[in-house]
């Protein structure tokens, strides 16, 4: 059974705050939910499916209690930053199966004001693999850096090419009134920012912010009668990638499995895609993801991203909101990929609007490239 034509995004909302010490995580989620339901022209009473991640183990039950909801479908699938891209696909499947009618996907985080050291704090988990890793000082930045170094060695990718991704993303952020960092930067600025874990500089890394957002998914049929132009969920696919018992190629990403699957399920080709939201935890994440998704050949990401191709007006504009590198990154950014793609497809993006945007691709990465990560891909269309 395919989800194609069965479900649509009816409402989205991106919380405007990047710093929210005066709010709670649950409050950010509730405010985001209110915004997305208003956007759709629905109320809390319509919601019978609840999706979230980044809460405690049973936090989704507490979230339902906090909102005084009694959903008949619950999903707190937690696969890192890609979780909310995954939830969007799961919600479409649940709706296609008739398990719920209106799904509310919520995210809220205060990792910035809680001073959570995402990128450079130590690991300390109890998973089997971690007993062979934590003793060596992996950090989030360091894990991605392992992939960057190998990619440079094998394919001649340069720091200048990686920097170009941060520069283009910042240019997009300058057109987004909500973006945290809006002042233009140059390749030189990236290269002269301090090395955090070689070869990644500070400006190769996403920021840490507070924030949140919400998505309302309902049946394609019901979405037609709601307030906004529905955005069709054409396909979804997921994957994970890990150390493969010591045999893995570090220059590949989970996107290599989920990307082509999502395109095939939607019966569309790379050239049909008008814009893409590509998880940008780091500049290297974007480069490796574009290669793994198949927008260019493996090893050619460095030249692909040049000459304005990934900027507004280019062949494949990406991360038009400014991404995690410049707009916001509250720890798990997947929900913003779907929100921005939805707004682009509705033509609501003002100065940063991609012309004639009809098909958008979202790819979330959760975890770390150098160790293990998940991938979630979505094709959305108008």
């Amino acid at each position, binding site marked *: 059974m395919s989800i194609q034509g069965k479900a649509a995004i009816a409402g989205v909302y991106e919380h405007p705050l990047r710093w929210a010490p005066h709010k709670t995580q649950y409050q950010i989620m509730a405010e985001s939910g209110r915004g997305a339901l208003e956007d759709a022209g629905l109320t809390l009473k319509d919601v019978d499916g609840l999706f979230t991640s980044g809460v405690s183990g049973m936090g989704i039950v507490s979230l339902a209690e906090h909102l005084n909801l009694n959903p008949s479908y619950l999903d707190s699938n937690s696969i890192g930053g890609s979780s909310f891209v995954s939830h969007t696909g799961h919600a479409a499947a649940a709706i296609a199966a008739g398990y719920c009618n209106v799904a509310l996907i919520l995210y809220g985080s205060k990792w910035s004001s809680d001073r959570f050291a995402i990128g450079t*704090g130590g690991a300390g988990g109890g998973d089997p693999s971690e007993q062979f890793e934590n003793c060596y000082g992996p950090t989030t930045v360091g894990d991605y850096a392992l992939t960057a170094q190998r990619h440079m060695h094998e394919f001649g990718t340069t720091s200048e090419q990686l920097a170009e991704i941060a520069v283009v993303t910042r240019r997009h952020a300058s057109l987004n009134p909500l973006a945290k960092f809006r002042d233009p930067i140059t390749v030189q600025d990236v290269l002269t920012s301090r090395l955090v874990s070689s070869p990644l500089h500070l400006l190769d890394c996403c920021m840490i912010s507070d924030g949140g957002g919400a998505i309302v998914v309902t049946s394609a049929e019901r979405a037609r009668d709601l307030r906004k132009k529905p955005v069709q969920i054409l396909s979804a696919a997921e994957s994970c990638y890990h150390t493969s018992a010591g045999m893995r190629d570090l220059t590949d990403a989970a996107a290599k499995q989920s990307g082509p699957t999502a395109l095939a399920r939607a019966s569309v080709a790379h050239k049909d895609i008008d814009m893409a939201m590509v998880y940008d935890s780091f500049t290297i994440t974007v480069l490796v993801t574009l290669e793994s998704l198949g927008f260019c050949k493996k090893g050619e990401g460095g030249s692909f991203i040049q000459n304005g191709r990934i900027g507004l007006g280019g062949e494949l504009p990406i991360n038009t909101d400014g991404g995690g590198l410049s707009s916001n990154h509250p720890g798990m950014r997947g929900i913003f990929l779907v929100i921005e793609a939805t707004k682009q497809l509705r033509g609501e993006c003002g100065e940063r609007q991609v012309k004639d945007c009809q098909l958008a691709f979202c790819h979330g990465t959760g975890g770390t490239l150098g160790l293990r990560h998940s991938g979630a891909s979505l094709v959305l269309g108008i």
Partner: protein
Amino acid sequence: MAEEKKYKKPLPRIDEENKPFWEACARHELYVQKCRSCGKLFYYARGFCPEDLSSDLEWVKCSGKGTVYTFTVTRQNQSAGFRDSLPYVMAYVELEEGVRMLTNIVGCKPDEVKIGMPVEVTFEDATPEISIPLFQPTAK
């Protein structure tokens, strides 16, 4: 009065699956596993073969030699133990036996580390029970 703990980095949690690996490290020996059923060699230690779930496994003693597959010089880590050893080199080393393992490169300056560089295992005694396998440039 208890002596101040010298080793501040996280230690592996020993369990039934990884115990033989860490017991060998304590003797300053590096082992990987091989499946007798399908012949696959793998790392990290498990209680079964990740290819076919067979439990018929053997331990293969490694030469301790390998090459750097990739690395990063970490300049920022706020956690205990690592804060004091910045900058340090985290790397994947490809063992002669064919598998890659995460490790640290020691015994040279961080900026001397290159991909493809020959390295050999050395052990840091973290506690009387636990020694951590690290790699250093191969002696000429």
